[in-house]
């Protein structure tokens, strides 16, 4: 039969129904959707095998008993005054390290993001970007990828050898890896916003910085602020983890406490974490524009009265952090430190490339990929389920689930892994579960925000017609938020590949275990190979995820 536009309207001519498929029969997307679903299922199987994913092992009698014993200790946190005073000082050190690190990261990230984003390209206005600017953007993006591909813990492990124990290594590690992350995400946020205002300004002959301030920023300022505050929370968690390699702060206390099996002290420290991250969460909620509580009333202009006060507070926090950290800037950036760094780097070359070793590295890389992918997948499912409840407008369930998400998120993967190791022993499965637990907290919160920020009109139109709650969700809310949810999940996967390598340090297998092994044996050439493999892996995952997200945003 013929399908075509007739002269006047766009009306499809339905001619000769018997001659072939009716126009409503061909669903062009059906085959592709089915293929995608099958491919995902086929991929899942090897992941489960590589991760040695046998969750029922957690439930056998022996591991249950060990878990219970450990959990029982947790019930009586140590709260005597001396310990609390110590922790208060260490908590401030953790916050200060995170704040200074993030401030340095911001200084790295902003200029690079502006260089990396295609949004402010003048040559791209008239079609393709010029060759010179395109090469510069590519170069900046590559630097950003390298910066964030090396996990902060690995940066810190190496920096400790150069600048010695103390907060300096931690701050620099955060600055480097967070600079890479912030720069990349800032550029992406700028690009995901509506291009027309910026382009209109640029076409009108306005300068790039003005176009940024008047065209691009107003549309995504909320998202940028929200993301930066969110990264600050992450930096707090990171600075805790960095304590494990001697940077000081809560992490070092936690490391000591776990090594002495002092469950009561671990419990106190964990509680303080959760409180810290919850406080940062409140700050972030305050910074974001107010949501409309009443759908039947016209939108209220966002309330931002406290903004100036808050910014002053943040500035004070920043100055206090810089002032109190014993940083010895002169030594960090002096000639002696640079020479030592040069010697240290020279030890890494040439990388170990023996075939047998490379095969083991390949095996480790597969394990790491499987752990990160399965962990992110599990977390996406669990996170969405929790986000559904957490994005309810009000009620005890909303606050309960938010509390749960906060708790999951405040405990870093590494700490989750350390706890799960007690129950499940060494191996990739506790690592996967640890990733999943922490990522559930992160994704659950981001997803709840994405669901809340979805424009409400679509959902209202269906609700006003009497559709049930889940129908409204499936037909309006989810399709609107889905690209963002998938995008977050992919991004967390990129993040988790780094986390998965770090988890190896506590015995979860994969590249991380190899790295910590060879680093502790001072086998720098092997360490170099493992590092290169990590870098390649992260870049590969990054490229896959970038391609997938571009496809999503098309």
């Amino acid at each position, binding site marked *: 039969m013929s399908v075509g536009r007739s002269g006047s309207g766009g009306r499809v001519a339905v001619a000769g129904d018997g001659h072939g498929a009716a126009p409503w029969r061909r669903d062009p997307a*059906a085959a592709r959707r089915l293929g995608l679903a099958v491919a995902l299922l086929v991929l899942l199987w090897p992941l489960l095998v590589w991760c040695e994913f046998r969750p029922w092992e957690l439930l056998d009698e022996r591991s249950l008993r060990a878990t219970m014993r450990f959990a029982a200790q947790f019930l009586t946190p140590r709260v005597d005054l001396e310990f609390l005073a110590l922790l208060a000082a260490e908590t401030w050190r953790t916050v200060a390290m995170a704040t200074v690190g993030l401030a340095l990261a911001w200084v790295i990230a902003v200029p690079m993001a502006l260089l990396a984003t295609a949004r402010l390209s003048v040559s791209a206005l008239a079609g393709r970007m010029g060759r010179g600017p395109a090469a510069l953007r590519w170069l900046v993006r590559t630097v950003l990828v390298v910066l964030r591909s090396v996990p902060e813990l690995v940066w810190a492990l190496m920096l400790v050898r150069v600048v010695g124990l103390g907060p300096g290594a931690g701050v620099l590690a955060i600055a480097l890896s967070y600079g890479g992350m912030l720069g990349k995400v800032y550029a992406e946020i700028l690009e995901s916003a509506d291009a027309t205002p910026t382009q209109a300004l640029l076409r009108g002959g306005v300068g790039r910085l003005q176009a940024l301030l008047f065209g691009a920023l107003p549309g995504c300022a909320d998202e940028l602020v929200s993301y930066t505050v969110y990264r600050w929370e992450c930096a707090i968690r990171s600075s805790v983890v960095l304590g494990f390699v001697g940077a000081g702060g809560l992490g070092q206390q936690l490391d000591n406490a776990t090594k002495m099996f002092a469950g009561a002290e671990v419990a106190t420290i964990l509680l303080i974490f959760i409180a810290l991250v919850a406080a940062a969460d409140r700050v972030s909620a305050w910074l974001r524009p107010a949501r409309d509580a009443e759908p039947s009333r016209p939108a209220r202009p966002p309330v931002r009265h406290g903004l100036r006060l808050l910014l002053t507070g943040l500035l004070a926090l920043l100055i206090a952090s810089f002032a109190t950290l014993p940083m010895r800037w002169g030594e960090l950036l002096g000639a002696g430190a640079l020479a030592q760094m040069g010697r240290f780097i020279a030890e890494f070359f040439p990388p170990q490339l023996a075939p047998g070793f490379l095969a083991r590295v390949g095996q480790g890389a597969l394990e790491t990929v499987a752990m990160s992918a399965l962990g992110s997948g599990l977390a996406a499912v669990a996170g969405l389920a929790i986000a559904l409840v957490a994005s309810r407008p009000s009620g005890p369930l909303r606050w309960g689930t938010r509390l749960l998400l906060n708790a999951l998120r405040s405990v870093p993967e590494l700490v989750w892994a350390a706890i799960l190791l007690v129950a499940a022993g060494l191996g990739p499965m506790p690592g996967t579960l640890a990733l999943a637990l922490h990522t559930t907290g992160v994704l659950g919160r981001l997803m709840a925000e994405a669901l809340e920020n979805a424009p409400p009109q679509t959902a209202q139109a269906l609700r006003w017609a009497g559709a049930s709650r889940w129908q409204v969700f499936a037909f309006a809310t989810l399709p609107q938020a889905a690209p963002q949810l998938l995008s977050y999940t992919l991004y967390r996967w990129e993040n988790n590949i780094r986390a998965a390598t770090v988890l190896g340090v506590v015995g979860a297998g994969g590249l991380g275990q190899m790295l910590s092994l060879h680093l502790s044996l001072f086998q720098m050439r092997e360490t170099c190979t493992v590092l290169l493999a990590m870098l390649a892996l992260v870049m590969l995952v990054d490229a896959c995820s970038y391609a997938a997200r571009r496809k999503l945003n098309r």
Partner: protein
Amino acid sequence: MGLLELDALHLRVGARTLIEPLSLRIEAGEQVALIGASGAGKTSLLQAMALALAPAAGSLRLAGQDAWRLSSRDRHWLRRALMLAPQHPPLPPRQRVATAVLAGRLPGATMAESLRMLFSPNEAQARLAFEALDRLELGDRLWSRVDQLSGGERQRVAIARLLVSNARLWLADEPLSALDPQRAQRVLAVLQDAARAQDRTLVCSLHQVDLACRLFPRVIALREGRVVHDGPPQRLGAKQLDEIYEGLADGSPALAQDPSLSSPPQAMCR
């Protein structure tokens, strides 16, 4: 008993009155046009009829039930009796047109049917959507994505949603505002024929006064939240029309945008 009865219905947001206390009654099967200048309260009234805007005072009876005295669950159940096509239909990007149209069938659909519509409409569902779209000259966009549609095409998707729905009361908020005059006439004819054929009641706000007067047996005119005319368009005098659009005839933006109003309004009903 009328299908929809408003009794001293008063709509207000804060101190601002949208609709002064208003009583009217719409019988099953009626076709009513709502006219009035921008800001006269047409959209608010339609939203109130769609149970989307709670009244400050007064009552609204739909199919004999006092909607705002029901529990919110019962009121939600009652909503199945009506459907509103908004002026700027909010459609999730990336959704396919077929799914967007079939969303009109959601109220009362089982979970299995709904999931089918969402992921892969079966033949009967696809055919239903296709036929509705085809009548609105959009049949060839059945499997397109809604974000590829123009404003006028999106409006027609919202009308197609009405056509496939089981709602007895169809509410349409300026459904023709993004269509060219010729197509606007054809689409309105399709909507009215379908309402007649499927035994539906139609309340439609229009700013094409000539179409409202020519094609609707009953016209309700609003001015600043008050009903200034309710009845056959023949009784709508030139003076009243002037009043309705007073302050607009001097070339205010709302008038300048709309080609159908560029001639003096009273000429249209003669």
